[in-house]
């Protein structure tokens, strides 16, 4: 029996790098597709300043031009290049999506572990979470912007707050199930102390479902940001986010549909890419975790 596992392990180790990648892609086509799509979008966003002209430069003489060789995605009512604006908009969306996922992931993880592990605090924290969950992010964003100056940070905070309870719920339930696992009893019987038990045995086992949840929150965050910007409650209008581009092109939709369609398609592709990765990771890491949306 030992001999057999030895052989397969040796064979696996000897696969050339390319073949290993090919195998990995064949086994996880969803993750691969999402990753490739996302990689393309991220590179476009990073390289935007070098690939395009100034997204804010107005040239009314070129306004509402359809896509052409000079203006790949056409121009808007101020003659601004939609290609430049869309690529710069990708930066806003990706920053918002990733930051929201990271912040709500970290806060949610901490609170979730506390709730799942220290049962006395659980009731109180979870009721507060239920309360926060009832706040619509759009209302919260409008309220925050009236209180402060509009900006990316405010948008991120407004999206993070209602997302945190969703992470807390997932992490808490995972921690509750981990607590009952024999390896926890086993670690305690081996003399492991409380903090070490959390850091070494509980936390790592919550990460797989948390990563999956984080991808969905990333996608949701980008959609909410676009919605907020479209409503004028998001990032300031001078920043070319996809929501802003669509909002500003709305009045010209009938004569210049590209002003709306192109950022819309990009938004859809980005969300799709992130969700594909999320689905793939879920199948790979934790098939039992239910989808959120």
């Amino acid at each position, binding site marked *: 029996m030992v001999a057999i596992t030895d052989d397969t392990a040796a064979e696996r180790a000897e696969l050339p790098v390319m073949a290993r990648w090919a195998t990995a892609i064949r086994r996880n086509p969803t993750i691969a597709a999402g990753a490739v799509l996302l990689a393309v979008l991220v590179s476009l966003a990073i390289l935007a300043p070098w690939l395009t002209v100034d997204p804010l430069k107005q040239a009314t003489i070129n306004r509402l031009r359809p896509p052409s060789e000079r203006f790949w995605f056409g121009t808007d009512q101020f003659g601004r290049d939609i290609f430049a604006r869309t690529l710069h908009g990708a930066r806003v969306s990706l920053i918002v999506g990733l930051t929201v996922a990271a912040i709500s992931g970290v806060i949610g993880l901490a609170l979730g572990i506390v709730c799942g592990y220290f049962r006395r605090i659980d009731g109180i924290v979870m009721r507060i979470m239920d309360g926060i969950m009832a706040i619509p992010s759009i209302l919260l964003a409008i309220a925050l912007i009236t209180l402060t100056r509009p900006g990316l940070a405010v948008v991120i905070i407004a999206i993070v707050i209602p997302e945190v309870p969703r992470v807390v719920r997932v992490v808490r339930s995972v921690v509750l199930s981990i607590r009952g696992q024999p390896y926890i*009893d*086993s670690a305690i*019987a*081996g003399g492991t102390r409380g903090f070490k038990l959390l850091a070494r045995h509980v936390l790592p086992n919550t990460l797989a479902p948390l990563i999956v949840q984080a991808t969905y929150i990333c996608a949701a965050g980008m959609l909410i940001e676009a919605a907020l910007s479209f409503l004028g409650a998001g990032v300031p209008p001078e920043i070319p986010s996809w929501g802003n581009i669509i909002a500003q092109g709305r009045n010209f939709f009938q004569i210049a549909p590209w002003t709306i369609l192109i950022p819309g398609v990009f938004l859809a592709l980005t969300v799709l890419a992130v969700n594909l990765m999320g689905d793939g990771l879920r199948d790979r890491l934790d098939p039992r975790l239910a989808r959120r949306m």
Partner: protein
Amino acid sequence: MTAMNILEVRDLATHFFTLDGVVRAVDGVSFDLARGETLGIVGESGCGKSVTALSILRLIPPETSRIVGGSVRFDGRDLAALSEAEMRAIRGHRIAMIFQEPMTSLNPVLTIGTQIAENVVRHTGVPWRAALDRAREMLDLVKIADARRRIEEYPHQLSGGMRQRAMIAIALSCNPQVLIADEPTTALDVTIQAQILDLMLELKEKLGTAIIMITHDLGVIAETAERVVVMYAGRKVEEAPVEALFAQPTHPYTRGLMHAVPRLDADAEIAGRRPRLQEIPGIVPALNRPIAGCAFAPRCGFATERCRAEAPPLVSTSAGHAVACWETARVLEAA
């Protein structure tokens, strides 16, 4: 006598405080464990075997249960008097425990080597590198082939038998004086079970660890234990050297257990009939009400009025053999 014993449990009583009342899971159990000895604790599910083990290590859930009486002396120290930190230093170091489920008793996200080495570092404070060497040594000791590579592997890459070996490696990594094995082979198939038991006995000889073998399987007891404690409804009903117990089971419950083991041996074949498997009539009493008299009386064919009224004391019948029964004379006659 005391110097010989590494562990002395006296009148241990552990109660669970539930909504249905106080459950007397362990109700005055006493036994000694000599250095290097293997003691079997046998009884059916819910008789208090596991709670006894957990009580020794003070691992019973504090929200619902408490050790209400008795004492546990380990190496001359009263474990009840120790602080939680002192207790943690004993768990996994001086008294180690292995559990029933090898499939889930290892943390799935840490490698085997890490899990062994962590135990070593926690209790001995040696550098990580030395602890990993120790991990390799332990895997060799529990006969996991190719230890060098196995310490890099995760639990899911090992079979059930190998995982239980890895659990034993963790448990023995700090040379504990006592190993408590709670149904260590129940989840394994029979051939692997035999291998694991052989391994445990071999290591016991090699390392001088005393073992408390908790099981419901009389076969496991016969193979491994030197002395046996039979438990019923939270109480010790019989204690004997293993040969004496199998040669002359004295408590009616022990007899019932023995008759309930299927036999495929030649004696029965020659007699021309294989006797119908005998079960013990009735069910285990609810432990949330005080039991007057002998706990086994309602299911016992020998029970008298006295049995139902008055709990029998543990009486020595021969060297090392003690039984808690009023009707020992009648039971032995019936044999």
